């Protein structure tokens, strides 16, 4: 299989001392302060916090899209200074190009896709159950299908780290379950490190093994909680939910 060999096992380390927004009048508004965490290969970390706390801002910093911060983001010890393909993002709004078909959206990642690249793109799309939708435009897709195309695009050039911004927000329960399974499978098979932002406790437990919380003003990270894999053990599950809910409301 082509896909397998290209993934590299990597971890991400982030230490953001201060992330600010530059105002027009030279005033800096601090958005994040003291956010520090680490994700190792094959594991996933959830970042939880209320809407508007700065979760997406944090993801943009991790991806190298935003340089207005002090501190460092490193993948395997190498700093991320601009988007370099090591860290890839699936945005909450998917950001598929409306004028490209499903296949073209995935092929976008290559400047001039080779036959092998085309094969790889199709392979991902088939994996995600989009076999019949290769030539469809995004407007004709359901939200779940769009999410899968966005996933396929992010994985087509295998990243070291995958950032998922509210991956299940706005999806119905069944679709959310399927996408959860898709993401879990990719994580397990390729040992990908993921960072998932969410405000949903169940999403956190389904997709991740640990969680940190963002809160306060300016937002900072607190309350790292490692719960590991919870496989159907209801007592563990209940305890984890309780802890997460307690910490979520702590600030």
């Amino acid at each position: 299989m082509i896909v397998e060999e290209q993934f590299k096992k990597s971890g991400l380390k982030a230490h953001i001392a201060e992330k600010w927004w530059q105002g027009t009048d030279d005033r800096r508004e601090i958005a994040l302060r003291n956010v520090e965490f680490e994700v190792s290969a094959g594991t996933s970390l959830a970042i939880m916090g209320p809407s508007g706390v700065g979760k997406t801002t944090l993801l943009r910093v991790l991806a190298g899209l935003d340089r207005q911060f002090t501190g460092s983001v490193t993948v395997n010890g190498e700093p991320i200074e601009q988007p370099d393909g090591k860290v890839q993002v699936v945005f909450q709004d998917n950001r598929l190009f409306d004028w490209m078909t499903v296949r073209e959206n995935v092929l976008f990642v290559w400047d001039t896709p080779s036959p092998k690249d085309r094969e790889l793109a199709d392979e991902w799309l088939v994996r995600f159950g989009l076999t019949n939708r290769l030539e469809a435009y995004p407007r004709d897709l359901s939200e779940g299908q769009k999410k899968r195309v966005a996933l396929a695009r992010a994985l087509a050039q295998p990243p070291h780290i995958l950032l998922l911004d509210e991956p299940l927000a706005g999806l119905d329960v069944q679709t959310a379950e399927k996408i959860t399974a898709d993401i879990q499978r990719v994580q397990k098979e390729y040992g990908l490190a993921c960072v998932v932002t969410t405000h949903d406790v169940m999403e956190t437990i389904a997709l991740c093994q640990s969680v940190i919380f963002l809160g306060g003003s300016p937002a900072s990270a607190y309350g790292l909680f490692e719960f590991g894999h919870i496989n159907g053990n209801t007592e563990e599950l209940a305890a984890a939910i309780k802890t997460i809910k307690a910490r979520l409301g702590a600030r």
Partner: protein
Amino acid sequence: MKPFAETLGYVRYRKPLERNKMVQSKLAQWTRALWLPFGILAVWFIAADFALVPRALLPRPFDVVARIFALLANGELERHIFASGTRLLEGLLLGGLPAVVLGILVGMSRQLEDYVAPTLRFLTPVPVLAWMPLVILFLGVDEAAKVALLAIGVFFVMYSATAGAVRSVDIRYIEVTRLYRKGLKQTVSRVILPACTPAIFDGLRSAVALSWIILVAVEIVASRNGLGWLLWDARTFGRTVDAYVAMVVVGALGLISDSLIGCIRTRIVTWRNDFRGF
């Protein structure tokens, strides 16, 4: 769940029709389109035939049609149409192509915008016809002057449309191009240009409509052929019928050119989910 608009009861969602139903629906659409022109024609017919308006001012519709055929038969109308059409196309190409290129460049580069845009914003509101004396002084009264005036008109419309379109590309798309480390060439050809295509077509549409207006005006001023000349010649020699002929022909050609652009647009922009009216 029913779509919201449908629950309100005034939307019928159009299902794909069978072939003969499709023909029927097209025919119905044409019929609806023809009501108004036939209505106007009827009023015209009554007003002219019963001489409610002096015949010298308002010829009978039949006379106009007969004159069109007469002018077609002796090849004169074709000559005018060909002359005007050539000018129009030349003006569109000469004004439109540089406008789209410059519009994209200015849209892409804030620095270039600083250098160029204020001047263009200053020149845009200057009416094309105000350029006429200057252009005639420089280029004479020949073909070049007419095409140049058309090109000037087209240029400003298309430039504004294109530059504006580039700036209204969703910044989130640009972020995606950064994530996938796309260079300028890839960003323009795969994201900016396709995203701007609908707006560029809308600009082209306005530009063509404007071109017909400019065309007739410049042909009135100095020409030996073209539909504007036909119109002005009719005025000079008091041939009212010819004036009506010119108006009808310009209208028809304008309609055809506009429909043509509309057709090409729908062929190219297949991906949009535009509101098509209830």
